[in-house]
């Protein structure tokens, strides 16, 4: 009982105080919202696609390089993000991508992809190779539409949400690689904190919460619709 109570407290304490202040409902920078939505869509899409492909390959390959590649892909999980940041900065600076949208997208991709691959790989391992092998005996269109998509839809949703949450947590990376020229909801939030305007900070905080929550409901609804529609075709 104590454990459950502690867990509930730890989960809800950060949110209780949000109701103490009235948000100002001001949106100072529309471009920040546009950039954030753009980054969420692009990064989630690339992460889901790339991580699922990579995890699928890792699941089936007999290559002797499998362990080396696994180690390389998961390496960023063991190195603090800030340590990789400066290396990224130097490379992107060489390529002339500092202060650009492409540079920020690439940097965020480097940071998020190892987590996505790990999630995808573990998710596939839980479903299990034998069941997925049954799918391999099906023609490719049926395999993807009726088996793999329904089996992996929750996994893909988790990867998209996880990517979104990491993206929304990155202030230092976006500021450094974006050189302050690519505003997002996160960078705006930090500025509003510094400005001591609690109403504005709260508006931005709610915005920050709203993005993953909306995405969750959007993707869940889409999944449910798609799975029901596909199952209907088998009736």
């Amino acid at each position, binding site marked *: 009982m104590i454990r459950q109570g502690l867990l509930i407290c730890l989960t809800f304490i950060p949110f209780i105080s949000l109701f103490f202040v009235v948000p100002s409902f001001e949106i100072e920078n529309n471009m920040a919202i546009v950039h954030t939505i753009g980054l969420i869509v692009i990064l989630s899409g690339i992460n889901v696609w790339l991580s699922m492909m990579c995890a699928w390959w890792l699941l089936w390959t007999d290559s002797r390089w499998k362990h080396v590649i696994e180690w390389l892909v998961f390496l960023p999980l063991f190195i603090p993000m800030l340590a990789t940041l400066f290396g990224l900065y130097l490379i992107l600076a060489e390529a002339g991508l500092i202060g650009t949208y492409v540079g920020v997208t690439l940097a965020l991709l480097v940071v998020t992809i190892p987590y996505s691959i790990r999630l995808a790989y573990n998710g596939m391992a839980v479903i299990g190779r*034998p069941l997925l092998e049954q799918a*391999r*005996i*099906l023609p490719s269109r049926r395999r993807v539409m009726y*088996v793999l998509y329904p089996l992996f839809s929750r996994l893909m949703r988790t990867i998209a949400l996880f990517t979104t949450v990491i993206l929304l947590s990155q202030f230092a990376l976006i500021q450094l690689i974006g050189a302050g020229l690519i505003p997002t909801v996160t960078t705006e939030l930090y500025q509003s904190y510094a400005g001591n305007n609690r109403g504005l900070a709260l508006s931005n905080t709610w915005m920050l919460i709203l993005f993953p929550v909306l995405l969750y409901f959007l993707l869940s609804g889409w999944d449910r619709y798609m799975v029901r529609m596909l199952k209907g075709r088998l*009736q």
Partner: protein
Amino acid sequence: MSLNVQNLYKQFGTKQILNGVDFEVKPHDIHAIVGVSGSGKSTILRIIAGLESTDSGDVKWNHRSLIPIPAHKRRVTMLSQTALLFPHLTVGENVTLVTRERSRKQAEHWLRVVQLGDRYDAEIHELSGGEQQRVSLARALAAEPELLLLDEPFTNLDPKLKLDLQRFIRDLVKELNLTAVLVTHDREEAMLMADQVTLIDEGKVTRTGTVAELYDTAPGFGDFVMLDGELRPLSEVEVSEATGVSVQLMKKIYRFGQCFGEYQFKDGRSVMLPTCETYQTGMIYRIKRKEE
């Protein structure tokens, strides 16, 4: 249409799993591959199904190599130890999915064949293990395969259900004129189901022949006979009215011209011996070790 497995080699890491495996499956036969765990028998099946690559060698179906053909184009289906039904689909949807036209009618037909015609809309978790295995069989047959692969499909079933399903599948394969390859470590199962048997040990074929041929010649085949409290090779025992352990001949099973007797010990355990012609059902006989 015959299946030719030719000189298969397969290595996993540093372990050589298959060491030049050769055998032929005749058209419309049930061919059992018998070996202990780790002998490479399941790997052979996975290579035939297209789920595993080979290091060298070939698998020919009707004189055409299957190796370059992807798994879903081979017209081969596999039944495994666990039913491996897709959990997000109902019983019927699992079967409909593999039919050529995604047809509910066909799926219902195959479910009726496996005596589950009324369970089309049931969820997978509502079925017992035996029923799930039947659905898996319906799914395998609904794909209209030319070759059916059975990878120890009876391992997780209780003895009664196991025997029922073994007979059911054997009769069905014969009725549908399919060719089937059964992988098992259970010699009794091979004896009950197969026309031909290939014995495999450490990735090599040690013997191929009919059940009756192997009983006479293959060392170790049929060593499930319990005598003096331990398993004895069949070649070391005989049935007689002299001294030994009392057994009762319960029934005679005629399989492909060979008569097998099902004998029962006093404690209820039963064995099968490749003989029964001179003995009568219901009589008590004794089995003993052969005189040297």
